[in-house]
């Protein structure tokens, strides 16, 4: 089902621009993870969030548990940011539910 909805499903950015990805949750979510799957297929952890905000370099993520959403902001996009971004919600169990991903293409 659509317990974790990601938007947009695909995004094209020019180098140097900014954008935001979003996940909306229809399940009670305690923590959120953001991953980047690079074009080779490897999954990399970006953020692990309890409610609040974290920042790492050009990336910033916020998890608002009251309004059931999380955002991932990309600042000054670079070519190596290309790939598919997944958010994953941890509900009140030990299971994690993934969104279907946002495919990002950064071009010169």
């Amino acid at each position, binding site marked *: 089902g659509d317990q*974790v909805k990601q938007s947009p499903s695909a995004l094209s950015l020019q180098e140097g621009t900014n954008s935001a990805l979003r996940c909306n949750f229809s399940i009670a979510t*305690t*923590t959120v*993870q953001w*991953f980047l799957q690079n074009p080779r*297929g*490897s*999954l990399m*952890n970006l953020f*692990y969030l*309890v409610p609040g905000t974290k920042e790492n370099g050009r990336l910033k993520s916020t998890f608002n548990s009251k309004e059931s959403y999380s955002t991932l902001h990309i600042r000054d996009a670079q070519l190596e940011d290309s790939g598919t971004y*997944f958010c*994953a919600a*941890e509900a*009140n169990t*030990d*299971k*994690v539910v*993934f*969104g*279907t*991903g946002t495919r990002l293409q950064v071009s010169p």
Partner: protein
Amino acid sequence: EAAVTQSPRNKVAVTGGKVTLSCNQTNNHNNMYWYRQDTGHGLRLIHYSYGAGSTEKGDIPDGYKASRPSQENFSLILELATPSQTSVYFCASGAQGTPHYEQYFGPGTRLTVL
């Protein structure tokens, strides 16, 4: 040093054959997970484990078995592989926390069932 490794990385199997995907983690995590990734579905949980000797059904367990013989190793077994099981399979480990934990993924195994 990669903390979660998977083998094989690529596998071609025939319909009706038995396939075993292996996962090893050196994170000393209690929890381990098997997911499959298909276009339009994101990652879906097949089986998971809370520790050696434990296996639990995830969201899509049909057609799969799992085995956790030790803290480090977690296998996914397809007794009778079918073409619908063609997919990319990811293993992950996670520290058991209350209620929070984080997952670390292996590099994935691409399985094609002909």
